[in-house]
């Protein structure tokens, strides 16, 4: 693997993603945690671009930073008195050990794929990828994913209604 601009970009985006992730789980202040989450997901968008999926990268930024981040900041502020909990973690070391052990297991599985009989894919099979237009057609074509697409929109509607019903003040009159 030679060192070039793409490798550099990959390293930077990976570090941003992982650093943001560590920020999310270690930050005392939850508002900062939200910002770290955004940093992490922004790095993820960069990785998507490297994987030649620019549409997913743009949707990642739009959905996470435009919608979910705002949702989280509102939730953090609505539950403001507990932004600084005295104790951040429960069973810190046991959980850290569990996560670390799981990571070692996953990496071992990734690097030595014992269950793969033939050679694992290390490099892209082709440089030709499907484009955004193909994705759009696939989502609404009868032979493609039109049913999951409709189910997903139903899920979103249900989530929206559910969220409103749950979060609404009980004393509120509609």
């Amino acid at each position, binding site marked *: 693997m030679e060192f070039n601009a793409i490798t550099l970009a990959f390293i930077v985006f990976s570090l941003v993603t992982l650093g943001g992730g560590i920020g999310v789980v270690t930050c005392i202040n939850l508002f900062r945690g939200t910002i770290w989450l955004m940093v992490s997901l922004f790095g993820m968008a960069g990785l998507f671009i490297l994987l030649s999926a620019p549409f997913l990268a743009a*949707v990642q930024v739009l959905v996470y930073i435009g919608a979910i981040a705002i949702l989280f900041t509102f939730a953090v502020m609505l539950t403001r008195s507990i932004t600084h909990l005295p104790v951040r973690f429960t069973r810190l070391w046991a959980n850290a050990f569990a996560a670390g052990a799981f990571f070692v297991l996953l990496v071992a599985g990734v690097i030595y794929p014992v269950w793969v009989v033939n050679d694992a894919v290390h490099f892209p099979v082709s440089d030709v990828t499907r484009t955004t237009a193909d994705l759009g057609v696939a989502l609404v074509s009868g032979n493609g994913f039109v049913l999951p697409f409709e189910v997903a929109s139903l899920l979103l509607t249900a989530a929206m209604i559910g969220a409103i019903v749950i979060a609404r003040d009980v004393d509120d009159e509609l």
Partner: protein
Amino acid sequence: MDCPGLCEALVQGGANPGLAQFLSLFVGVVLVSGIPLVTVIVLILVERKVAARIQDRIGPNRVGPFGSLQTFADLLKLLTKEDITPTAADRLLYNAAPLVSFASVVLIWAVIPYTPYHFGADLEIGALYFVAVASLGTLAIMTAGWASNNKYALLGAFRVVALLVSYEIPLVFALMVPIMLAGTLNMLDIIYAQSSMWFVFMAPLAMLLFAISSQAETGRAPFDLIEAESELVAGFNIEYSGMKFGMFFAAEFMHVFTNAILLTIFFFGGWLGPLWNEPLIAFAWLGLKASLIYFVFLWVRNTVPRLRIDQVMRFNWFFLVPVSIGNLLLTALLLKLMQELGLAPRVLQTATLGEVLPMTLVLLLANLGIIALILGRLRTTGRSERLATGGGAGSMAVAAGD
């Protein structure tokens, strides 16, 4: 990788190909992000002059001929002012927020095609990129309001974020119409699709919706709840001073002009016009159209009074959102129907005027029909509200009290 233009010249001059590519990309990035920065200096002066004329004043006229150096004087003042950070503020986020706000606008310019041959990046998903990047600004405002550790700032930020998140919905729904007509998210292809007919004639309603919601996105009157001086002291940026305030200020001005350019690209054919093959003329066309739209934005800003937060929200959820969804559905239906009947070309980029004329007429009539329907409905509801509240000029006070 290919390496045209400046990069090629550098390589021929004996530079390392990698370095040459990096340098030429760097120059490109600086140029693309430099254009909005230079534009904003002019914009501030234009805005103040136009606002002054509309309000029957003269405007800045002391520094330089016709006050043309006023912006530089203001810039110097902002730079030399004391840069205050409140002691209880979250220093990192407090300082980062103006940068993010500024960046969210400058980043949009990366996909704007200035001429057929000059653009920052020719992204396959240009229009979606614009929506995604613009949403960064919302986060910046929230961060600024929270990090200032001031209740007025936080309240201001809450209101602004509620406003921005809500108005993003009609904005995107309106944006879907030109995207659907052009059949692509690429900015250049959207412009080429208008080579025989501008989209404003096919979708005037979408144009209006886009203009209104982008005016709201920038937080300009009648939606200027961002800095409702009389209620919120100055809104989310109350604690900011010096150049950090200046960055929020410049970001707002730039955002308005950026919206004017985007409106030009999506609905008024971008740089299309006679002789658009010449880069300079194409650039002039884009600038001219965007400036005219910018003037209309200023006109609206200085003419219409500020709305209350509940009025703004109701206007969005009970008016803009349903209308934009209905408009999108109707346009999609008509477009598909006409394509199946062979009345409309499937690829607009190569269609001639004769081919697009029938679909333009049908879509225009449909749009006018919706507008007439809306106006009729507003007339009846307006009348019944006036009757219910006693009518006449006194009803304003009653309506404001409910």
